[in-house]
């Protein structure tokens, strides 16, 4: 029985090519266009893995992620977060500080760092993986395969 992957992304094209790539590689793909719809789909189908876009209007990927992790029956579903921000985790681990050049990324990175920090403090286990946009579908499939086989 093929494994089911839920794709939560507000961008139609991204949902489309991720679906194509997943199905091409033998997974069932289910999509949702925003956080609320995503949560609804999780409840409906109990996916084996979730591909979750961070930057979404209304409900961000992080709030949906926390919602999943707090819920006992969903907290073990592996999540790959799709971000537009490069190297967030690496920098987070290195505790990079003293940036002098302020850019919107700084605030986004800072937001991510705080989000991750908060997740840790709240006992929320971090996502299995972050993958940067632009997404290379083949690389993504590799990652999915690495987690759920």
């Amino acid at each position, binding site marked *: 029985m093929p494994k089911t992957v839920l794709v939560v992304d507000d*961008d139609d094209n*991204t949902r489309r*090519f991720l679906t194509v*790539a997943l199905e*091409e590689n033998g997974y069932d793909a289910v999509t949702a266009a925003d956080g609320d719809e995503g949560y609804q789909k999780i409840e409906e189908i109990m996916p084996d893995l979730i591909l979750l876009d961070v930057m979404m209007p209304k409900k961000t990927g992080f709030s949906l992620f926390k919602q999943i992790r707090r819920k006992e029956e969903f907290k073990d579903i592996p999540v790959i977060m799709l971000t537009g921000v490069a190297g967030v985790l690496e920098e987070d681990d290195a505790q990079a500080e003293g940036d002098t050049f302020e850019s*919107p990324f700084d605030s986004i990175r800072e937001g991510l760092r705080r989000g991750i920090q908060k997740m840790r403090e709240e006992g929320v286990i971090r996502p299995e993986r972050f993958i940067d946009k*632009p997404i290379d579908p083949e690389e993504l499939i590799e990652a999915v395969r690495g987690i759920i086989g």
Partner: protein
Amino acid sequence: MSTPGAKEGKARPTLRGAMKRLRLAWKVNGLFLLILAGALGISRFLTNLDLERAEIAAARETSIATSERIQTRLRGIMMSHQANELVSLVDRMASENPAFRDVRLIAHGGEVRTSQLDPDAGTVGIDSWPCTVCHITPTATPAVTSETCCEVLEFEGDERALSVVTPVIGEEGCNSATCHSEAQPGSVYGILQADFSLAHVDALIDRQTRNTLWAILLCMLLGTLAAWWMTDRLVGRRIRTIRAGAKRLAEHDFSFRFGDSTGDGLSEVTGVFDRMSSELSATMTELMSTKEYLQAIVDNSADIIITVDPEGFIKTFNPGAEKVLGYTKEEIVGKRIETIFAEPKDRDAAIEQLENGDHVVNYMTHFVTKDNDLRNVMITLSKLIAPDGTAMGTMGISKDLTDELRMQVQLMRTKRMAALGQAITGIQHSIKNMLNVMKGGAYMVKLGLKKDDKAMLTEGWEMVRGGMEDMTQMSMSMLDFARTRKLKLRAIDLGELLKKIHSISHAKFSDAGVVLSLDIPNGCPEVVCDEDGIRSVVMDLISNALDACSWKQYDPGETPEVVMRIVPSPGDQRVEIQVQDNAEGMTEEVRKRVFTPFFSTKEKKGTGMGLAVVARIVESHEGDTYVESAPGKGATFRVSLPIQGPSLREE
């Protein structure tokens, strides 16, 4: 009572001082001597007066006694009609009394006369004289009286005589007279008049009068001297001191005090003088300190403070002005004020503005320094008006903004760099999203080719093409944003501009079911700005509002509306353009970020550049952009522009 000489002597023990003291001592002592002499003279004169009065009384007594004696003797003589005896009697009497001058017997038997005053009169025989009692007319003779009386007679040559008139009373045997046989004993039948010279008494009176005159003169002289001395001592000297004090006061020496404690009228004056002096001193001290304080403000101010007379010549030039403009006060005062204006026309324009009001506030212009450097200054001009209302010229307080402006330009550059950084990251973000789609599309193209699936290939290709189109569009809007267009500034009527925009756009709004309305007040001022720039600002704002309106689900009966409004605020020389919609409004978070480049709430629509471009254009006009909004309350975008246009102009 100390003398002024002694005082001065103490101060300056010189020969002149000693001489002065001596002279003064002589003056004072001499005066005492004179007063003493005068007093002696007066007392002497008064004694004399008494003596002379007694002498006159004595002369009178003697005259009366002599006259009565003559009369007694005469009576017998007359009875006997012995004329010779009468004459010798008169002569004897005259020799006995040196004052005796003349005697007349007026009787029935005739008059006997002998005279010392007129020796030539001689003695007239008694028989040759008619009886005056019987025959002489009453007017020619003294009235017959029964009492002895005296009278003073005056003769030629100021001679005076005391005339004593005694009645001759008839006795027994008198009847023997020839023609007067009817005469009865006891009746008055003649008078004896004896004159005594008053020359002696007159001489005494003359001397007395002279003495009196001299005494009066002396007293007047002494009185004058005493008065002079007293005046000088009590008033003159002190008035001189007051004068000296007043002079010192006039020379602004307020330390002078009389300290007069005599308590008389003058000391009241000097007291008033002292009080005035100390009050003046206090006032002057206060005035000086106020003046010094004001001067210190002017001197220590870093601002350029210059006053100019009504003819346009520099009158004062403070150290702040010296420092900024490089001229010393000495070399610039008296020169024309235009010397320091880079554009003398600017000064004329400012003065013209000043004519219409009391002040010209924050007028931006350029000064030129001694070394020909340009300084950006913000000048505030005020009229200088004397208390009586006459114009004294103008005062300008100018702030040298050159460095500040340079820093502002620097800051703007820094801000621009930051904005550039934001833009780059924003662009990167957008590119990543587009690349994401294109990468996905490319994957599908590859897959379609591999599987010979034309539908997938086409779909993938469409995604790649869409991404390319998005990128093209983004690069276009980036060009819009990045273009550093030189502002074509001119004064335009914003009301007219909004009307034009309204006429171009209202059809598009009507098609979308949105009402576009105008709210323009009368007399809205012309604003110096770049018309194309401001037009694109307003166009962007209303198109944004139109989008907002089209996303909202309006209640039935509610009309989507966008209002373009002009709100002048004359106080701060700005005017505001407002674009108000009644759409959904926005959260505080969104409100804060609307002007950030690449920020968009429109998901796949728009580039997130529109409002950033708006802010950019407004900023280049030195204007400000604000948004007022709350969820469900619609939004009002406000663009505030300076009426005079931007002051900062980069070369």
